[in-house]
């Protein structure tokens, strides 16, 4: 077993499932995509190191997800558990890929590190914002496999 960088991380309360409203069950009402919906997409992504979700580690938070439907923009800030976390890029990439697969392609998605929470914040942000580098990373079959690991749902626990 590889040695963990952060053996004993803090664990946070999970948000309860979103309640379904009457409007959502009405065939004729249009539901806008909102921050919570996007948060629901990414909160169950697995952490690469721990058998915990990004939500439980407070890496992603509902309040750090922003949507602008008119401008077709989505902004997600994430917070690595420790400032030197070497997994930051991988976590960012996982979030990016998950949103790439789950959101309509009209959206432009920005995934960034919450300002001031990581040592090499700028470098990571730059990598994540660079479309070509992201595409190239996904060509790498080993890397893709690791990302898919993070995105695979452990069905029994998540439902």
């Amino acid at each position, binding site marked *: 077993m590889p040695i963990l960088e952060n053996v*004993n*991380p*803090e*664990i*946070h*309360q999970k948000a309860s499932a979103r309640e*379904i409203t009457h409007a*959502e*069950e009405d*065939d004729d*009402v*249009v*539901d806008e*995509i909102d921050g919570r*919906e996007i948060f*629901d*997409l990414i909160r169950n992504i697995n952490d690469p190191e721990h*058998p915990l979700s990004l939500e439980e580690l407070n890496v992603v938070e509902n309040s750090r997800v922003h949507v602008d439907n008119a401008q077709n923009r989505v902004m997600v800030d994430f917070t690595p558990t420790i400032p030197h976390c070497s997994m930051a890029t991988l976590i960012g990439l996982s979030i990016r890929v*998950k949103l790439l*697969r*789950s*959101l*309509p*392609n*009209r959206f432009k998605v920005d995934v960034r590190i919450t300002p001031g929470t990581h040592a090499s914040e700028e470098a990571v942000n730059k990598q994540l914002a660079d479309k070509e580098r992201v595409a190239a990373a996904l060509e790498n079959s080993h890397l*893709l*496999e690791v990302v*898919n*690991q993070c*995105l*695979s*749902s452990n069905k029994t626990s998540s439902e």
Partner: protein
Amino acid sequence: LPKDFLTIKEVELLVNFFSDRLKDHHSVTPHVLFGLLAMSTFTHLPPGSGQQMVKEVSKEVHVQSLAQADRRSAYSILINLLHTKMEELKPMGADFVYNFIQTMDGERDPRNLVLAFNIVPVIVQNFPIGMFAEELFEVTSCYFPIDFTPPPNDPHGVTKDELVLGLQRCMAATPLFAQYCLPLLIEKMTSDVQSAKKDAFHTLAKCTETYAAKDFQEFLSSLFMCMKREVLSGVSEMVEGAALSALTAVVSVLSTGVQQKNSETLLDGFLKDIIKDCRHHLTQPELKLMYPSGKLLQAAAAGSDQACCIILREIIPLLLEQFHKHTQVLNRRSVLDVLLGFIKISKRFNGSDEKNPVAEYKDAIMPVLFSLLSETNFLLRCAGLTGIVGMLTLTGVTSEEEQCLAAEHMLKLVLEDTDSSVRTEATTALTFISSELTWIVCKIVLPKLVEYLKIDFMETDQSSPHFSSGYLLNTLAAISVHKDIIQETVPILYQQLEDLTNRPATDYSEAELCLNCIANIVQSSVQEKENLDFFYEDLLQKLLKISLQSFINYLSRTEHVLWKQDILLKLCSVIRTICQHLSQRQGEEMVKNVLAVYVEGQSHLWLGGAEAEGAFKPLQASSPWQQTQALHVFLAVICALHQNVLVPSLYSLLDMLVNLTLQLSHSLSQLGTVKCLAGLINKAPQGTELDSYLESLKQKLETLLNTRVESGQHQGAALVWQWVTKALVLRGHPISGKFVEKMMTFFENSNLNKLAADGFYIVMAEFDDVMTKHMHAIIRPLYKQRFFHLTLPGLIQGFNSTIADRKQFYLTALSYLLRFVPKQVLLSELPPLVPLLVQSLLIEEVSLQLSTMTTMYDLMHDAPLILGEYLDTLIPKFLKLSRYEPSMKVRIAALQCLGMMTTLPQHLTTPHQKTVVRELAHPLDDKKRLVRKEAAQARGEWYLLETMQK
């Protein structure tokens, strides 16, 4: 042959003969063994021949060079002889052990191993294994951990569990194995294979049953290291659980030795080590390892009373200190959770001479818990509640004053808390107290609730929503778990209902709530005789009276609460639940009464002197609908009673019901009437009277169905036909075949084809208000299978030969069959049905599409290979339906099916991956959130196909 067929002499001769033949050429050995095996089962076995057989076999035969079946004979001989001739074999002593070791050494076949594993414990118990202990352990333990997957369709039925448990029994057979077994287990606990770890922990737990404390001595610290590693890493819940129960078992065995010398220090020392290891984590409640450390300590404490005392004395003060030191909500909550775990563990404490260790700290714990109840954070309030309940469950720890105080606090939270989860939790807590400490609830809680209820009725404009009378009523219902409380609460609830019916304009929801509360109480408490008698004498009579009043006084009112369908049916369900449980005597009384009132119109029997505006004639079609729908009440009484309660002049009543069904146009009344008819037919006593009645009913209905009258009569007749068919199919009456046959012809009858499929629903579905098991209906086992096999060929043939317009009627009927037929039956008939299912998806009929997709969803799980063949057709259809504008339910179901498809074999799905992923981009932008959610899920799973491939 009978086992005592041969005499002693004859057996002796044969045994000698067979024993001699063992010396012959090795090719006859198998047959000889077979012969000896037969010998070993005879009762007249001469003295000495048992020993002789064992000796000769071990001397002349090398068992492991034989074929599987012959080795099996050898083991079986041993088993038989050990069973019958133990006294004779015992003197063989160590020789026998040595022989056996040689016999089983190298065995590979799981079937034989099961036998061998059964022999080992017997040998260990009856023979001196001393000098061969290590060898005997070696030949068995080399199979540990068992890694065996039975081949599919294994005819021998050897399961992995059987082997695992057998081996466990061997390894744990004697303390002599301890010095070999424990190191082996420790080695397996450190391996990387999860199942090996789990087996090792299970075996360890098993070993504690026979091994003594001193056997564990030198291995304790390594064992604990292994357990700690599993629990703290929390990789696999299964292994973790096994490790924790092993820890409990070890502590418990260490404690049994305490009376003997030296062992005291052993337990103390072990626990001290554990505490030292864990306490540091308990002081860091914000971190992950807090909970697992707590679990370890709790598992150890559960081992014995001594351990419980030692650990709790150490840990409770520590946790209390931590609680006061930390101020953050989450940290405090973690500390509390762990503390609660310890309180729960102490419940197992049953020390006769010592007090529960928690009692010592009660004065420190209770104030903390009570203070939590006024915290601003709801999580803490909940934790406080759970804590108090935990403390109350400990016998002899809390005082009466504290119990009363707790009840008052809970009631306050129930009534006043702003957070709904706290209120729910508090209600649960009250429910708990009601069953355990009934007197407190009667004394404190009930009067308070009643008082609030009264206030509320006067000021109906109460503003706070959780303080409505509905909420109070629910609370009343929730605490009604004990007969003393029920006898107080049910009359209150009934009074509330009666008040509502007397008001001219009423809020229906409140009456419904009231009835729901009554229904819940009745449902959960009617099994007890005392409650049943109370309900029968009090509630049932009142309900029948109040409903009769509402039916009879229809002139002066324009509306009435009990006229409303939902409320009437709810009322009926309460009546039904009570009637189902009545004794024969009570039932007969009920029948007499209900017939007098409903059939003969003697309404004064129930109403007494109360006002009645007119006659009560529910069985006449000319009566107003308010009266005819009273048939539901009639149904609830007369069809719920036990089979041995006979209905006088049954057949004239049946005739009335048939005619009423045919004439009624009010559909609710009609349904009640026809259900009543079917329910009675289902339970009618078998015999010629029933047969001839059915024959005449059949003719009467057939005439109606065949003549060209206006469709009203047609529909009524079809309805009667379908329900009577259900009643007959259920009880497996011989004439049911004819009824089913006729039902099949409805599809091609232009007046009836729209109704044809309904019959299939009626027969297959279960209705909770008629002909259920609880209502004592006659239900033949497997009737659904029978009906399925009986009708399926006809449906398929009809579908194939009919004109296009009628195909959908067959498909709908088919979908009803599939929805209710047990899965195993469906799977065997599936292949020819799949094309029909595909057809069903094409018909623009939302309910048919939905039910077909539900079936397919399940089938992808149960019959992946069969559905896999149709992927080329199915995928485009589902993709199309995932954009079906009119109904989001259809879109969602289609997306769920697509998601489920990823579980089908990879080589079938991978070719479609690109298309599906591309097409699923559209529903990602669906206007409905629920659809988008499913789309994202399904698309994600299709993306992941490639990883699972590896």
